[in-house]
């Protein structure tokens, strides 16, 4: 039996607002109330000025695919049923911070630099994950290149 996928700790005050917003279909990131630095992932202090208060700023669940990795082995057995699965690193529009997340596209459609949008996927009553999908108009229509020696 495949083990259960990891879930976030919803009681952690550091990240609880993020998960609450995700459940409502919004992407938020902590912004330092002293210097305005937008921090991702959240830490307990601003790395710029060491201030500890933050406001949760809504940012667009849109970005650019900066890079990706495609898992062909279930290195975490909880993801065995998803093999092969792609993890993307998405640069969020406007703030320039990067987030990791599962990609909803097939490997052949993934392209660095492509515009992507967040898809809010509830996994239970409390937790909604943000997955990412290449914008429809940016989907590749060309066949997948062969494995050896490709340049993409």
């Amino acid at each position: 039996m495949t083990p259960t996928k990891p879930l976030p700790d919803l009681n952690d005050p550091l990240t609880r607002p993020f998960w609450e917003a995700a459940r409502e279909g919004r992407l938020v990131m902590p912004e330092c109330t002293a210097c305005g630095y937008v921090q991702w992932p959240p830490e307990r202090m601003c790395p710029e000025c060491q201030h500890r208060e933050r406001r949760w700023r809504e940012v667009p669940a849109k970005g650019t695919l900066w890079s990706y990795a495609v898992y062909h082995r279930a290195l975490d057995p909880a993801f065995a049923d998803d093999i092969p699965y792609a993890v993307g690193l998405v640069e969020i529009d406007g703030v320039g911070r990067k987030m990791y997340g599962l990609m909803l596209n097939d490997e052949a459609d993934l392209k660095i630099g492509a515009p992507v949008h967040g898809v809010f996927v509830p996994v239970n009553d409390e937790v909604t994950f943000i997955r990412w999908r290449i914008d429809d108009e940016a989907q590749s229509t060309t066949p997948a290149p062969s494995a050896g020696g490709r340049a993409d």
Partner: protein
Amino acid sequence: MLTGARGAIVGVGATEQGEIPGESPEEIAVRAAVAALADAGLDKSAIDGLITCKQALSTHGTDEGIGPLLGINPAFSTTLDYGMGAFSLHLASMAIQAGLATTVLLTYGTNARSARTSFARPIGGSSDWLRLAGLVHVAGPAAMAIRRHMHLYGTTEEQLGWVSVSQREWAQKNPLAVFRTPMTIDDYLAQPYFVAPLRRADLTVISDGGVAVVVTTAERAADLRKKPVYIAAMAQQSAIRNEQNPDKLMRPWLGEIAKRLYASAGIGPDDIDIAYLQDGTSVWVLQMLEWYGFCGLGEGGPFLAEGHTRPGGRLPVNTHGGQLSESYTHNWMHLYEAVRQLRGECGERQVPGAKVALYAQTHDFWKGAATLLSTEVEG
């Protein structure tokens, strides 16, 4: 100008590499230490400094665990985390230059293979976020880094494959190496993906083994039995802001290490005869070839495909097979090999006339250390 003021390596020792069932990391480390002392022609009573490293992802390997087996009470004794050979070497030089010790033994042992250590965990900061995304194992972020490199510079999987193929060619000449089966570039490309675009051959061996090194002053080194290998220059750079760095995966801070290393030594990449680049993944080798200036940024792929790092090439890299083919000792066996190459002891794989070696390590996305080693110094 290369000087001997930072100390000299006067002895190296290693155990067998591969599977050593039933031995603790401490026992393995001490067996390596005994071999290094014998190589140096020193009794353990000559050791007044000890540096050990914890085995990766374990609590084993502290100096306090090794002391009762080695049976010494050195004046200076300490432990670094996470098995970092290059950082340990710098610490030894610092201890000697600071007057805390005159002769330092560095030793490391691991039973990662026999203990079935799992490396399928998040690598980098913010491990919770990585785990939620399914981004476990160093192969994930390394795959992202090389995929980005491919996008920016047109690097191909075949070009990257030459890291592993070249090191396997070297490993075939090394009796200690775990993986010695011939592997052509076609064999490499025929391997299934592990985390695409990486294959199994792009990732470190997991093995048991021990390595030890003895460092002392240049003055003392002159009286010992083996040809001294001098610590000619050292540099480090951290990136411990980690995820809060915008370009974490590409590790541009490696260039800062290179700049300071070359400035300190007064030499450049063209003066280096052999290079030991820690290869937890093949991607790290490609990155270091570029940032240490052996080729331009983005030119690592063609540089590798031209064969410069292979036996007979102009920049032999990881001539023992490295972590991709020889063994997994967190860069320690790279140091063992570099010293033995510079002393001319490597038999079939000896690089003729090798006088200057680069020994460079990174601890993934956190920090890096590099040393220039040479048998010839002035003053």
